[in-house]
């Protein structure tokens, strides 16, 4: 099957210019990225600050175009201008700052903004707004002002705004970076449900390890390159390497690693707290 997202040798250079517009410096933010994502997949992109995650995300939405290499989204070449709108319909994007991506001052009108732009008929807009607000669990806030919502709620509104455009894929660029732990949980839960129930391809960009445990596949970026890839278990088992890229494995994995260093016979790729308690209980009762 053809991959839904296909990046080959993707390079992006930001050029610094002086007042006259002459290039004074070049910053290679992406340096030969190869990523393939299947339709309906849930992939996570990890990386420390400045590793090029946001730059990559913006390519998926044709907000930036490759300097070198190619990127196809659902078979469309992002470097062709005429594909801009179709690509933005296919791949929706949720940004980091919840305040700066909500356009209207009534929740339902904000969710309707995307469909309005796409020229969807009025009754259909209302149907979509209702449906997507329900699917992120924010339907009862539809008449409110976004200014009165918490960060996590605003982020879910932003997700609903994307959902209403009926994209095949949603790219989330650190959607939880400005949220408190409970807001973070609610957003990640929403995202996982969309992936499972609606079969929407998810690309989650983050630097919180706990959030990627549900992903099918994880890419680790550093200095504009993909340095590691694999299932979450495969990636987290290599904690020393992750530390090199200024990333830390989840707390549970760290505890398991520490225990195994102390000579306790425990797998290195534990992802969930329940998993760890399970194994520890088994060891205690002598099963293992």
């Amino acid at each position: 099957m053809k991959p839904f997202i296909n990046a080959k040798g993707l390079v992006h250079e930001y050029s610094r210019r002086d007042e006259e517009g002459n290039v004074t410096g070049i910053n290679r933010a992406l340096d030969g990225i190869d990523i393939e994502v299947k339709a309906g997949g849930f992939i996570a992109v990890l990386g420390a600050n400045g590793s090029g995650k946001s730059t990559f995300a913006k390519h998926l939405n044709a907000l930036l175009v490759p300097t070198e290499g190619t990127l196809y989204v659902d078979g469309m070449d992002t470097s062709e201008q005429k594909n801009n709108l179709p690509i933005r319909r296919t791949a929706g994007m949720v940004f980091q700052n919840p305040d700066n991506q909500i356009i209207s001052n009534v929740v339902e009108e904000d969710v309707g903004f995307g469909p309005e732009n796409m020229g969807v008929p009025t009754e259909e807009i209302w149907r979509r707004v209702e449906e997507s607000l329900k699917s992120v669990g924010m339907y009862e806030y539809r008449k409110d002002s976004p200014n009165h919502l918490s960060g996590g709620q605003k982020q879910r509104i932003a997700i609903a705004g994307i959902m209403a455009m009926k994209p095949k894929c949603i790219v989330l660029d650190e959607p939880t970076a400005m949220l408190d732990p409970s807001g973070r949980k609610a957003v990640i839960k929403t995202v996982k449900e969309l992936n499972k129930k609606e079969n929407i391809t998810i690309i989650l960009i983050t630097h919180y390890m706990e959030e990627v445990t549900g992903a099918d596949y994880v890419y680790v970026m550093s200095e504009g390159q993909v340095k590691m890839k694999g299932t979450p278990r495969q990636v987290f088992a290599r904690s020393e390497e992750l530390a090199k890229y200024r990333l830390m494995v989840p707390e549970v994995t760290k505890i398991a690693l520490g225990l195994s260093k102390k000579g306790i016979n425990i797998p290195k790729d534990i992802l969930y707290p329940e998993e760890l308690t399970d194994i520890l209980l088994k060891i205690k009762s002598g099963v293992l």
Partner: protein
Amino acid sequence: MIRDITIGQYYATESIIHKLDPRVKVVCTFAYIISLFCFNQLSGYIIAALFFWCITKLSKVPFKFIVRGIKPILFMLVFTALLNLFWTSGEHILIKYGVITITAEGVKRTIFMALRLVFLIIGSSLMTLATTPNQLTDAIEKLLRPLNKLKVPVHEVAMMMSIALRFIPILVEETDKIMKAQLARGADFESGNIFHRIKSMAPIIIPLFVSAARRATDLALAMDARCYNGGEGRTKMKPLKYKKQDIIAYLIMLLYITVIIIAGKYLPF
């Protein structure tokens, strides 16, 4: 909470006036203001006042909210009134004391002018109290659409207005935050002469501008990502459509204007 501040002054309630198409309210308010200048005798003011009183009752907006609109212009009101009082020449001199002369014509004109201003203010107050800012921008966009042909970017201006409505409370809160942060660093906004105080505002204004610019770039990206492409080919989630009640409202307004004009011509006082 500072985020609760509302721009405009919408008074949320259910009333016939609230439910009218916002275009009706904008057009009728303009017509009402113009009508105030179509007469110059007492009966006209009585009719205008009665009409306004009926609309206010229908709108269910408490009267004290409406008169609140007069407060900010009270100074201007008194000032123009005094000018009119002292500078109108006429035949029936009431008081003459040194350079000050007050004539009967002056008194009449003063009262009428003040009344006119008051009606003008409370009339537009009532409109903003009974219409949400969003509806207002929608109405303005639709009413001014013909100007599109003259290359006036009507849709863009309306979009800017509604984005401003969303971001003003956020920026107000941010100003408050920056101010507190600078106070914590020992900044002093209160003392010194006026120049000193203006200068001490720089540590607030500059971060505020930087942050506003960042928000603007972020928002532009977010709008792009959601397929925003200007007004063309856009549909509306809440399109404005005239209903029966709106036509009736226009007819009532027309009737009022006719009455006012006839009264101005034929009534003796």
